[in-house]
């Protein structure tokens, strides 16, 4: 069964320098609180995996903790660019950022392969695109029945996957609902799984669209109320679109970014 931990302790125990970390949540349920705890603890040299890096990885990249990014769409959804991501790729600030870039279908299937204990997945994808020229995790396989050539993508198996869910019970069984994205696959592909939750409840009530991860498939659960903000947790909060828009000028400017992180992340130490 999963251990119930404080966010500080869970991050300290599960996330290490040099790890490959996936923090998933497709717009919904993005684990911002855990990312901020990683920043506070200065866990560095990370390889970050995520379909949509979003503001969460813009912050980790800008904080200088990221060596490599594995992703498929790196924008601020509905707003524009992720400026810290661009600054790292284009100018190497605050450090050079290696990238492994895919399409969404490719990334989703890399997680599926990882969750399935397979070394690769097959898809109809990448045909005619220049993407495979810049990565060694796309190849081809030939169908042994039809002779058709299809794309193959290498499985992704993070050292640790971090997701945010609405609820867990005291045994560490977790339930998330609403848009559940690729979280199940990301969690099951990982060696260790950390789930932050809005709240711990006595009993999980099955929900429509509910995805349940049994406690024995989770390493640790940490309460983090509103831990997805400025993303959201259906049933608990709504997406803070104004924050996403306000992030644009903050992230455009290195000093404004540093000041924001100082004020909103470092100075807000997590209760232990």
């Amino acid at each position: 069964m999963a251990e119930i931990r404080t966010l500080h302790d869970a991050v300290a125990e599960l996330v290490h320098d040099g790890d490959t970390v996936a923090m998933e949540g497709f717009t919904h349920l993005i684990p911002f609180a855990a990312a901020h705890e990683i920043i506070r603890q200065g866990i560095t040299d990370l390889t970050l995996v995520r379909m949509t890096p979003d503001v969460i990885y813009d912050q980790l990249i800008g904080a200088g903790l990221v060596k490599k990014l594995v992703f498929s769409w790196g924008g601020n959804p509905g707003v524009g660019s992720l400026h810290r991501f661009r600054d790292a790729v284009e100018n190497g600030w605050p450090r050079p950022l290696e990238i492994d870039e895919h399409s969404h279908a490719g990334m989703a299937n890399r997680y599926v392969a990882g969750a399935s204990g397979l070394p690769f997945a097959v898809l109809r994808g990448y045909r005619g695109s220049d993407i495979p020229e810049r990565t060694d995790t796309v190849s081809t396989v030939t169908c042994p029945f039809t002779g058709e050539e299809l794309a193959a993508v290498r499985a992704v198996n993070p050292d640790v996957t971090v997701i945010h869910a609405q609820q867990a019970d005291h045994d560490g069984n977790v339930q998330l609902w609403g848009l559940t994205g690729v979280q199940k696959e990301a969690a099951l592909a990982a060696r260790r799984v950390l789930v932050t939750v809005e709240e711990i409840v006595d009993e999980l009530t099955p929900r429509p669209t509910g995805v349940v991860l049994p406690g024995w498939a989770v390493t640790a659960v940490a309460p983090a109320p509103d831990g997805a903000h400025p993303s959201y947790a259906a049933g608990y909060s709504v997406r803070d679109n104004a924050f996403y828009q306000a992030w644009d000028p903050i992230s455009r400017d290195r000093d404004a970014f540093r000041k924001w992180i100082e004020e909103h992340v470092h100075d807000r130490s997590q209760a232990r």
Partner: protein
Amino acid sequence: MTTAPRAAAATEVTPDELMTVNAARALAGARTCFVGIGLPSTAANLSRRTDNPDLVLVYESGTLGSKPTRLPLSIGDGELADTADAVVSVPEIFNYWLQAGRIDVGFLGAAQTDRYANINTTVVDRGPGRPEGRLPGAGGAPEIAANCGRVLMVLRHSTRNFVEKLDFTTTVGHGSGPGDRERLGLRGRGPTAVITDLGILRPDPETAELVLTEVHPGVTTDRVRAATGWELRVADRVTATAPPTEAEITALRTLKNAGRSAA
């Protein structure tokens, strides 16, 4: 229709509105649309409020049949899930619904496109001695363009966007010309229209090259040529797009205001 719809006064209407209204019209008759966020989402939602109320919107965040009452800022706004007929995982939406060829129309934006409606959303060349400029990347586009029955594109018209040669091919439209999609094993028909703030381009049935077939009211073909980074082919008879009706403009503005006030 027995009486002609009342046209909105042309002066009121912005080029972006012309683009969006015509993009929405392009969805008439479609049953299902895989919707990119931004301009495509606005157009698809407008279509549901005008020509095509039964249009099924499919978003890559995993929603089938979303019926949002306001424009989502992001592809994962809660309203998309709350109003959907079904919510599925991201792998499922790409594998079972998109890849299997179930979606009629893929609706895409683009940072750069070329004469064969190929798309670059990855990197731009900023000249010697400067690092590549970084764009968001592929997202769902390569597989949307490969696997939908046909593709619509919507983007603003400028020589920066309509280029002689893409700096990077993220997503294949018609490749390097006729027969290329078949050779690559891309199953849909590919882009059938590129709708811009100046007019509409469609691939020539013979050469697959984009041809200017329509201009918006008041736009000259020369102006479109000047905004295109290659020697743009122009149809023998370029027609003008019908001016937006009042109903279209009202629906569009209501949609955008609802989105704004909710944000």
